[in-house]
């Protein structure tokens, strides 16, 4: 059996990748995918803990996260499409109307 720590390290690596992608990338779709990556990194650790401690609540929580992520993806992609229609760019550094 794969030890818990392996899962956690993988989860941390996935989360770190997500954070790095979120911080570095300018393309808004990439950023969006980085967020999904972070969520899934967290999901992985939930599942790993659920198996380790033999508790179902971790699994249930993952479903909640997935539902929220799906909803978020729907709304987020709609926003991105609306944004692209008005601004014709996906570079978030150029979407700074509210910045002083």
């Amino acid at each position, binding site marked *: 059996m794969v030890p818990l720590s392996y899962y956690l390290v993988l989860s941390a690596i996935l989360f770190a990748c997500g954070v790095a992608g*979120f911080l570095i990338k300018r393309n808004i779709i990439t950023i969006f995918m980085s967020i999904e990556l972070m969520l899934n990194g967290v999901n992985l650790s939930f599942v790993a803990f659920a198996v380790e401690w033999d508790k179902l609540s971790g699994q249930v929580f993952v479903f909640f996260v997935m539902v929220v992520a799906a909803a978020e993806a729907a709304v987020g992609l709609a926003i991105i499409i609306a944004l692209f229609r008005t601004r014709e760019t996906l570079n978030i550094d150029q979407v700074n109307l509210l*910045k002083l």
Partner: protein
Amino acid sequence: MTPNLHLWLIPLLPLAGAAINGLLGKRFSRQAVVSVALAFSFAAFAMALWISARFSTLTLPYQQTLAPWLKSGGFTVDFSFALDQLSLVMLLVVSGVGFLIHIYSVGYMWEESGFYRFFSYLNLFMFFMLTLILAGNYLLMFVGWEGVGLASYLLIGFWFTKDSAAAAGKKAFIVNRIGDFGFLIALFLIIQHFGSLDFQQVFAAAKPFAAETTGAGFLTAIALLLMVGAAGKSAQIPLYVWLPDAMEGPTPVSALIHAATMVTAGVYMVARSHVIFERAPSALTVVAIIGVLTAFFAATIGIAQTDIKKVLAYSTISQLGYMFLACGVAAFSAGIFHLMTHAFFKGLLFLAAGSVIHAVGGEQDMRKMGGLRSKIPVTFWTMTIATFAIAGIPPLAGFFSKDEILWRAYQASWVYWLLGLTTAFITSFYMFRLWFMTFWGEYRGDADASAHGPADGASDSHSHGHGHGHGGIHESPWVMLAPLVILAVLSVVGGWVGVPGSLGGSNRFDKFLSPVFHTTSPSVNGENAQAGAMAPEKEVEGPEPKTGVSTELIFTGVSVAAGFLGLFLAWLLYVRRPELPDQIAASIHGLYGAVANKYWIDELYSWIFVRPLVAISGIVLWRGIDQGVIDATLNGSAGGARDLSDNVRHMQSGNLRSYAGWIAIGAAAVIGYMIWVGTR
């Protein structure tokens, strides 16, 4: 059952007048302003008369508490008003003379701008003065005390566009602050030792104390500090310097505030606190010495003044000195008697002087007057009465009160009497000098020629109103003359209420006031063992000393002779041999210079107090404390906040990903900390 007198209404009526005129007067016509001001000041006077009519039915002292004011533990101060014989005399003098001067002001100030402002201030003054008089405790008295100072300041600086008037107002206010400082500390001492400020309670608590004959205790301290306050308000040495400058105000103001009423507040306060003063003989001695020295000193300065109002100003200081001399020898009723007669004749003198100034187109220099007696006869005759009254010529008012003070002073010490008598002689001399210079001889001014042009009045304080175009020397309108005549009558008969026993009278004034002053004498309450120490006070406290009626008559004769001697000398110098004064002045050049320059007291004060204070204020307080500490703290904290924000604001870049980066760094830091805590 004592009837409810509604004493509080008396001060509040003029306040209502002041408020109406002050807030709305700008839109009123002059007639409306006058109606309001006169109506409310007359209402106060009418109420005073009504109260005096019912006075005999009252149980005295009549006390009326409206509402609690301050409560702190067991210490309370109420809004309370009190009435006794002493307040009644003051009440009638202040409201009566005040009302007359209101009438006079209508004529005097008619041409002035700021007419409504003047009457508003005048009513405000009446409010505070009546509060001072009717207050039932020291704190309410202090409110009135400060308030009359404020009204005085406002009225001295009435022509505030003129630098000298504004400066005189400030001088009066600041010098008075010094006195008020003493008064306030005295109040604190009273609270500390008696636990109350109510007159009844304080005096009841003070009565069991024996007189501090051997040493100086807290009663002496309280009395001396009260005297500091009185010296400030009543222009005594060393705080008299503001009063001559206060003549910058309009003449009715000089008459009302700086002669008849406000400056006598100190005398009233000392007389009111007589229970304390009687138990502090050394403080009484100080009061007497200050009084007699001020009387003498100010009178000598009065000799060499050429401004008609300045002469009267120094004369006022000198007469106030008499009143303090009377208080200082524990002859409080004599002091109040002189206060009353002085209010009549000095108020009249100022008003008549105002009428003279009005007549000659705003000129105040007596050297440019002369020969006015046929041109302004009513003013001349009223002023003559006042002059004879102040010179102590019988049977006018000033004679009786001054004579009584001198007699009482002699019983205390012959030094007081001698100085007082000399002062009486000097008073007579300078007053007749004023009288001769103004009304006799040839006219030396040029009002006939040029009174029409506004430029004529430019050099004097009345340039605002008296350079206007009514021709030449002219008698004042009747609205101004009527108060003169009434005051002249009072100056004649005012003294008859206090004819001493030696002249066949019964000194009813003294008897009237005796319930206030006599019942509380320490010799009444003190033990027999102290009778020896009390003896001098007992003698002067008695309604009429048994011994020496003929001696008293001799003294009366001497003081009358001093008055006539002054008259004769003034006549000799200013009518018979008008060239003599200049020769005398030249022959005693140094002394004359000292007197004419008021002994350089103003310059001395300027060097000792004013300049160092200004320098300290400028260097230490302004540049050091104000700019260096207070402003620097404020500006420094503001500047520091600005600099900090300047640096920190770069964090608020608006760049979303940098925010996310900060969040990530923060989260990492928190996690790192938790790991560190967990593995420790």
